[in-house]
C-alpha cells in the first residue's frame, strides 16, 4: 500500500516537473527585470544627462587633468606625467569619447525622439542643443568623429560600428540643428517644457534659444581661418536668430551643484584628496603682468609665503619640480574651488557648490568683438572695442570682481583695446583668461589663435609641440577598425617628407595637427591678423 502511495507521489512529482517545464510563459515571466524599467519619462533622463555632460567636459578628467594643462591655466607639480604629455595617449583620453557617446549623448538622443514623438520642442530642442554643445567638444578634440550614423545602436538597422564623418559636414549639421532648435523654440509654449527637470534654465525657452545661438557663434568663429565665408554667414545667422545670443551674465549656461557631498563641483572633489595642481607660470605671468584683479580669485597665495603669488612651469620633471619646490612655492588654484577640509589641510569653503560654466556671456562678447574687428557677422571694426570691454567686464563680474576694480583694470594701457591685429591679440588673450576652468575651449582657442603665444611645451615634456588633438580610442581600432582607419587615411599624406612628419607625430603624443579642419594656416587673403603659431 505504501508502495502504491509512493509511486503515486513519485509520478505526481514527475508530472508536476513536466508541467512546469512545459509552461514556458510562466517560467519566462520570472525574467521580467524587477530592478529597472523599460521606459521612463524624458525629464529624469535630461536631468541626469545634463549633469553628466557638464561634469564630463568641465570636470576632473578632460578639463582639470588634461586640457587645463594643455592650455596652461594650471600645471602639475607632483608625478607630472600628464603635464609632460606622457599620459595623454588614447588609453588615457578615450574615456571622454567613449563615455560621452554611451552615456549622455545616447540619452539626449532618446529625449529628442520622445520629444519629437510628442511634438514638444520644449523637450527636444534643449536636448538637441545640449547634444550639439557636447559634440562641439568631441569634434574639436578628435576631429572627424562618428556623427550621422552614431547613437543608433538600439534602433532597427542602426549601426553598431558607425562611420566617421568629416568635421566639415558635422559643422554644417551643427548650424542646421541649432537653427532649427532656436526657431522651433520660438514657436513653443511654456506648457511643453522640461520645467524643473531642466537643471540649466529650468524650462526658460528664451534662454535656450540664446544658448543655441551662442553655441552657433562659437563654432562659426572656429571656422574663421579655413572657411571665412561660412564663418561669416553663420555668425550673421547666429546674431540674428530668434532670441539672439547671450546678452548678459544672467544668460550664462551654468550647471549648478548642490554640494551635498554626492553632487559636488568636480574640481572640489579632486582637490579633496589631490594636491598636485598649481597655477601655471604661463597664466600667472599674464595675470601678474596686468595687475589682473581676478588673480586672487583664480589663485591662492603660495603655501610658502602668504603675501606672494607665483606659478609653476608646465611640463617639468618631478625632480625639477622638487628641486624648485613648486609644491610650496607656487600658488594653488583659488580657494573658491576648495570645499573646506581636504586630506592635506583646509582651504576655502564652498567649492563644492561652485558651478560649472558651460558657456558664458563673456565668451560670446569676445566672439562678437573678434567678429567686429574682422568685419564679420554684420558687425564693423568700430564695434570691436565695445564688445571687448563688455566681455572683460562680464568676466570680472562673473568671477566676483567689483566694477571699480574691473574698470581700473580696463583703463591700463596694456589692456585698453588697441584695435587691428594688436586688438585681435588682446581679444585672444583675454578670452583665454575668461575661459579659466573651461580647459577644452581654452585649448581650442589657443589652437585657433595661438594666443597666448607663451604657451610652449615644458622643458621636460615628452613632445616638442603642444598636442593639437587626442588619439582615437583603442577600442575603435578593435570594433570599428575599418571606419576609424578610413578617417585616418583621409588625412595622412604620402611621400618622403611626410614619413618624417609621421615619425615626429609618434613622438609628439598625438600632436598631429593635420587632422583638425580648423587648426590650419589660412590663406593670407582671409586673414586680418597675424594669428598663427
Amino acid at each position, binding site marked *: 500500500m*505504501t*508502495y502504491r502511495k509512493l509511486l503515486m507521489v*513519485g509520478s505526481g*512529482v514527475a508530472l508536476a*516537473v*513536466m508541467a512546469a*517545464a512545459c509552461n*514556458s510563459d510562466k*517560467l*519566462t*515571466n*520570472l*525574467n521580467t*527585470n*524587477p*530592478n529597472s524599467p523599460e521606459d*521612463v519619462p524624458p525629464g529624469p533622463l535630461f536631468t*541626469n544627462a545634463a*549633469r553628466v555632460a557638464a561634469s564630463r567636459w568641465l570636470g576632473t578628467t578632460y578639463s582639470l587633468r588634461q586640457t587645463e594643462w594643455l592650455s596652461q591655466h594650471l600645471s602639475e607639480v*607632483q*608625478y607630472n*606625467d600628464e603635464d609632460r604629455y*606622457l599620459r595623454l*595617449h*588614447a*588609453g588615457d583620453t578615450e574615456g571622454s569619447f*567613449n563615455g560621452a557617446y554611451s*552615456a*549622455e549623448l*545616447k540619452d539626449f538622443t*532618446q529625449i529628442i525622439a520622445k520629444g519629437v514623438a510628442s511634438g514638444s520642442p520644449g523637450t527636444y530642442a534643449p536636448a538637441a542643443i545640449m547634444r550639439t554643445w557636447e559634440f562641439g567638444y568631441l569634434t574639436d578634440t578628435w576631429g572627424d568623429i562618428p556623427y550621422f550614423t552614431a*547613437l543608433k*545602436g538600439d534602433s532597427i538597422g542602426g549601426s553598431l*560600428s*558607425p562611420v566617421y564623418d568629416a568635421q566639415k559636414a558635422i559643422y554644417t549639421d551643427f548650424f542646421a540643428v541649432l537653427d532649427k532648435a532656436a526657431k522651433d523654440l520660438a514657436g513653443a509654449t511654456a506648457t511643453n517644457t522640461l520645467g524643473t527637470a531642466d537643471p540649466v534654465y529650468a524650462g526658460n525657452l528664451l534662454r535656450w534659444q540664446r544658448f543655441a545661438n551662442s553655441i552657433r557663434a562659437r563654432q562659426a568663429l572656429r571656422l574663421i581661418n579655413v572657411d571665412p565665408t561660412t564663418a561669416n554667414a553663420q555668425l550673421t545667422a547666429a546674431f540674428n536668430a530668434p532670441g539672439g545670443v547671450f546678452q548678459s551674465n544672467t544668460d550664462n549656461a551654468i550647471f549648478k551643484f548642490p554640494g*551635498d*557631498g*554626492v553632487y559636488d563641483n568636480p574640481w572640489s572633489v579632486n582637490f*579633496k584628496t589631490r*594636491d598636485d595642481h598649481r597655477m601655471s607660470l604661463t597664466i600667472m605671468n599674464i595675470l601678474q603682468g596686468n595687475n589682473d584683479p581676478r588673480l586672487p580669485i583664480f589663485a591662492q597665495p603660495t603655501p610658502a609665503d602668504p603675501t606672494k603669488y607665483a606659478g609653476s612651469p608646465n611640463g617639468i620633471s*618631478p*625632480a*625639477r*619640480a622638487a*628641486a624648485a*619646490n613648486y609644491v*610650496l612655492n607656487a600658488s594653488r588654484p583659488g580657494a573658491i574651488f576648495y*570645499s573646506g*577640509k581636504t*586630506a*592635506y589641510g583646509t582651504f576655502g569653503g564652498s567649492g563644492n557648490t561652485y558651478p560649472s560654466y558651460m558657456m558664458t556671456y563673456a565668451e560670446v562678447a569676445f566672439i562678437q568683438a573678434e567678429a567686429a574687428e574682422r568685419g564679420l557677422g554684420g558687425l564693423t571694426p568700430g564695434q570691436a572695442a565695445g564688445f571687448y570691454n563688455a566681455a572683460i567686464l562680464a568676466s570680472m563680474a562673473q568671477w566676483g570682481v567689483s566694477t571699480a576694480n574691473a574698470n581700473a583694470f580696463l583703463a591700463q594701457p596694456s589692456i585698453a583695446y588697441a584695435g587691428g591685429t594688436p586688438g585681435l591679440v588682446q581679444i585672444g588673450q583675454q578670452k583665454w583668461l575668461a575661459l579659466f576652468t573651461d580647459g577644452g575651449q581654452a585649448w581650442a582657442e589657443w589652437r585657433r589663435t595661438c594666443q597666448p603665444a607663451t604657451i610652449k611645451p615644458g622643458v621636460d615634456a*615628452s613632445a616638442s609641440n603642444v598636442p593639437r588633438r587626442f*588619439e582615437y580610442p*583603442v*577600442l575603435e*581600432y578593435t*570594433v*570599428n577598425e575599418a571606419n576609424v582607419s578610413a578617417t585616418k587615411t583621409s588625412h595622412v599624406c604620402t611621400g618622403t617628407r611626410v614619413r618624417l612628419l609621421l615619425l615626429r607625430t*609618434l613622438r609628439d603624443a*598625438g600632436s598631429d595637427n593635420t587632422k583638425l579642419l580648423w587648426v590650419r594656416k589660412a590663406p593670407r587673403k582671409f586673414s586680418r591678423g597675424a594669428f598663427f603659431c
Partner: protein
Amino acid sequence: MQYRSRFSRLAIAAFLLAGLSPAVAAAQQGTTLSGRVTSATNGQPVVGAFVGITDLRAGAQTDAEGRYNFTIPATSAHGQTAFLTARRLGFQPSTVQVTLSGTGVITDFRLPAVAAALDEVVVTALGIERKKSVLGTAQQQISSTDLNQTSSMNVINQLQGKVSGVKITGSGTQGGSNRIVLRGENSINGNNSPVFIVDGVAISNRARVGDPAGGYDFGSAISDINPDDIESVSILKGPNAAALYGSRAANGVIILTTKKGGSTNSRMRMEANTSYTWETPSILPDYQNQYGQGAGGSFKYVDGQGSGDCDGCDQSYGPKLDGRLIDQFTGKQQPWIAHPDNVKDFFATGHSLNTTVAMSGGTDRANARVSIGADNIDGYVPNNTFHKTNGLLNASLKLNSRLSSDANLQYVRNVGANRPGVGYTNGIMEQFVWFGRQVDMEALRAYAGKNGSANNGPASREFNWNYNYHNNPFWLQQDNPVQDARDRFIGRVALNYKLSDGINAQVSSGSDIYRFGIDQRWAQGQITGSGIDQKYFGGFRNINDYSNENNTNAVVTLAKPLGSHLVLNATGGGGIRREFFNTTTTSTTGLTVPNIYNVSNAAVTPSLAQTLQRRQVNSTYGSADLTLGDWFNVGGTARNDWSSTLPSGLNSYFYPSGFASVVLTNLMQSMKGKLGISYAKLRASTAQVGNDADPYQLRTTYSGLSTKYFALAQFTLGDALANAELKPEITHSNEIGAELAFFEGRVTVDASGYWKYTKNQIFNAPVSTASGFTAKSVNAGKITNNGFEALVGLIPIQTESGLTWNSTVNFSRNTSKVTELAPGVSTLLLGSLWNGRIEARLNQPYGAIYGKGFQHDATTGELLLSGGVPMPTATPTVFFGTIQPDWTGGWANTISFKNVSVYALLDTRRGGKLYSVTNMFGDNTGVLSRTLYGREQDWDKPGVVIKGKDVDTGQENTISVTSEQYFQSIYPSIEPYVYDASYTKLREVRVAFDLPSRFSNRLNFSAITMAITGRNLVTWTSVPNIDPEFSYTTGNYQGIEFAALPNPRSWGLSFRITP
C-alpha cells in the same frame, strides 16, 4: 570474422571471470578457508579484496570488516598444498601456502598499500557510488587524509598541487577568494568556476571581491565548508562527467562528501583534530636602503603635505641615508637612516587555531554523525581576524525494509574582521610601493593619542608620515573597522523507497541559504579610495546579501542484472532549481555626529542600491549504463532544461553524453604480468552541455539613481544592448583516457586527453561606443581547450621492515585558444590597469597580455631612445604573451616508517606571463633595490647610458640619465614588467608521528597522531619582489598584479584522534 574470434575469446574470458565468483565456487563439503585482510599501513579492514586459489579458480571477496570465507570442495583437492593469494588493487598482493586437508584454515593478511587505487569506490554524479573501474570519464578523488595534510582556511587551498587538470590560484589577500578552473576557461565573459556540490546540495561559491585597481576581497563562499568534515572530494573534470548536474557543470563539478555515521552497535565514536599554525608573509619586495624619501636627492619635512621639500610626495629618490640630520615626520633634525625592515615590521605573525570534534554512532537502523568545528585566526596583517564556527549533522534512518531517509544540516557562521584592502586604491601594500625608505614603522605604530597636529599635519588626520596620499597603515587597520559575517544553512532531506530489488525511488530537496553582511566604517581622515568627505566624521558602507538556492529532485534508479553477465544501471528523473539573490547597499561619505554609523546620521545624502535576481531551471534527465562482466561498460546521459532566462518558446535545450570503458586486464587475463602490467583500462566519452543566460539579459532597461540632484530623479539608458533572441550556449567535449597499473600496483597511471569547445557563447560583445552602447549581448564566440593530464602513482620503496616511499605526480597541460569572437570584434578586454591589458583576443590563448611597449627601430630592432630614455609606443597594442601556463604539476611524497611519516608536496606552474605593477611603480618610486643602479650622476656612479639608437641623431645613444629620470620616463611602457609567471612552491610539508597503538587502543581510538605541518615554505621563481601566485577575484580578470599580499608561509602543529 575476426570479430567473431575476438568475441569468443571474450566469452571465454567472461566465463573464467565468472568462475572466480564465490557463488560458483560454493560447493559441498571440503576445506573452508577464512580470515581477515587488513591494511598494513593503518590496520583498517581491506574491503572488496579478492582472496583465492587461482589454480582452483576458487575464492571470495572480503566483506565490510575485511573478512572472507570460502570452501574448496573435497572433490577438487584434498591433502594437497595450494597458494592462497589476497589481492586488491591499491595494495600489494600477498600469497601464503596452505594445506587443503579438510579442516578449516584461518589465514589473515596484512597488505601493504601501493601507489593509487584505480578500482576504488568513488562518488559520481548525483552522489551515486561506483567503482572507478566502470567509469567512462576522468575523475579524481581525494581522501580526507590527503586533503588535510596541512590546515588552511579554504578547502580549495588544500587541493592545490594534488589534482591534475586543475588550475588553482591562492588568494592574494588574507582570507580572500581563490580561483579554481578545470581544464581551462570555457567562457569568454561568464563564469568559469566549477559547480560545488556538498552531499547532493549545489552550494554557492559567490564572491565579493576587488581587483588590482582596488577594493576589498571578502572571500568566496566555499570557504565556509570545514575541510575536517570532508570524507572525500571528487573532481569531475570535464563536462563529460557532469552532464547530469546541468548547465553549470560545463566547467566541471567538485563533489564534497561529508563524513557520515555508521553502525557502531550503539557505541559512540569520537574523532578530534586540532591544529595551531603560525603565519608570515611568504615574499616581500627587495627594498633599497640607501636613499630615503624625496626627489632629485633632496628632502625636508615641514607638514607632510608639501610645505617642506617633497614631504608631500611619496617616492624614495631623496638624500642618501648616511645619518645626516634632516627634519622628519618624527621631529626636527633627526638622523637620516634606513629602516630596512620597516615593511616587514608592519606585518605581524598570524596565528590560527583550528579544532574539529565529531561524534558518531548508530545501529543498523539509524545512525548519525555530529561535528563542531571552530577556526580562530589572526591574520598576519595587524588586527585582521577570522572566526568560523561550523556545525554539521548527518543522519540516516531506515524506517522499514523499504523506506529510508537521509538528512544533513550544516550551519556555518563565518566572520571576518578588518580585512585589508587590495589593489591600487585600497591596498595595504600600496603605500609600501609608494614609500619613504627612511620611515620608522615604530613611530607609525605609536600613533595612538596623537593626531596630525603633532607634526604640523592637519589636526583632523591621524598621525602619519605623509598627509597627501596615505593613511597611517596601523590606523587603517585599527580605526576603520570592516566586519563581514555570513550565516549559512546548507541542508537536504532525501526519502528513499525501495520499489523492488534493484529499483529505488528518491525524492530529495536541498537548499543553500545564507545571509552575508558587510559593515564597513571609515573614520574621518580616511583617504584611500573611500571618497570620505573630510568635512564630516567619516562614513560607512553597508552591504546585505541574501542568497537562496533550492534544488528539488525526484529520481528512480535501477541496478539490475540482465542475465548472468550483464548489469544495467539506470537513473531517470526530474528536478527544479530555483535561485534567488537579493542585495542592498547603503553608503554615505559623511556622518553628522561621530561614531554613529547609521543611515539616519548621514550628513551626505546616502546612496542606496538594491538588486533582486531570480532564476528557475526545470529539468528532466536520465542516464543508463550497461556493464558486461567486469570489463566492459557503456552508457550515456541525456538532459533537457527549461530556463527562465531565455526567450519564451526558445528556452528548452537538450544535451546528451555517451561513454564506454573497457578493463583490458579483465578482458584478457593473459595481459596481466606482461610488461609488468597488472591493470589496464581504456575509456572514451563525448558530451555536450547547454547553458542559459544570466537573468534579465533580454531587454535593455533604464537604470535609476537613488540619489537626487536637487531633489530631481535621474535615469539613464543601460550601456549594454540586450538581445531578445538569445539561444543557449553549448559546450562540446570529447575525452579519452587510460588507467594503468604496473608491478602489482606499485606504479599507476591515470591519464586523459580532451578536446572541448564552447560556442554560441552568451556574452556582451564590445561595440563602438559611438553607437551609444558599449556592448551588445550576443550568441557568438568560441573558445577551444585541448589538453592532457596525468596522475602517476609510484611506490619506489617498500620494505619488509615497513619503510615506504609513496609518491604521486600530477601533470596538466591545457592549450586554450579563442577561435571566434562576435562578427567584427577581434578582442575583448577582460581587465586593465596602468597600460596593461588582459584580453580575450582572436586566435590567442584566453587571457593575452597587451600593453604599451618600447619603440624599436623597424629594421635593426634596436631600442629607440630620446634624450637617453626609451620611448613608449603610443598605443597599448604590443603583445607580451599569455597568462595561460604551459603546464602545471604537483609532486607529493610520503615516506613512512613504522609510526613516523614525512610528507612533502611540490606544486609548480611553468610558463605563462604576468604583469607586475608593484615592480613598475616600485621602480618609478625608487623603493626597490634595483633602482640603486645609476642613482647619481657623478664620477662614482655615472648614471645609466641605455643601449639603443638616439632618435634625433640616429647614432648610438650616449646620453647618461639617472635611475630616477630613467624609471620616471619609461613608465607608460609595461615591457620591463611582464615576467615569466613560472614558480615552484614547497606547498605542503607534514611530519607526523602516530602514538604507539597501545596508548591509542587503550583509549579506544585507532590512532592518535601528532604532526608538524608547513605550507608555502619555499617559493622558487624568477619573478622579482612579489609572490607570483596572486588573485583578486574568482572572475576572469587575472594576470595583473598590484600590491598583492603574498600568500602566507605557515608552520603548524596538529593533533588528530582517529576513531
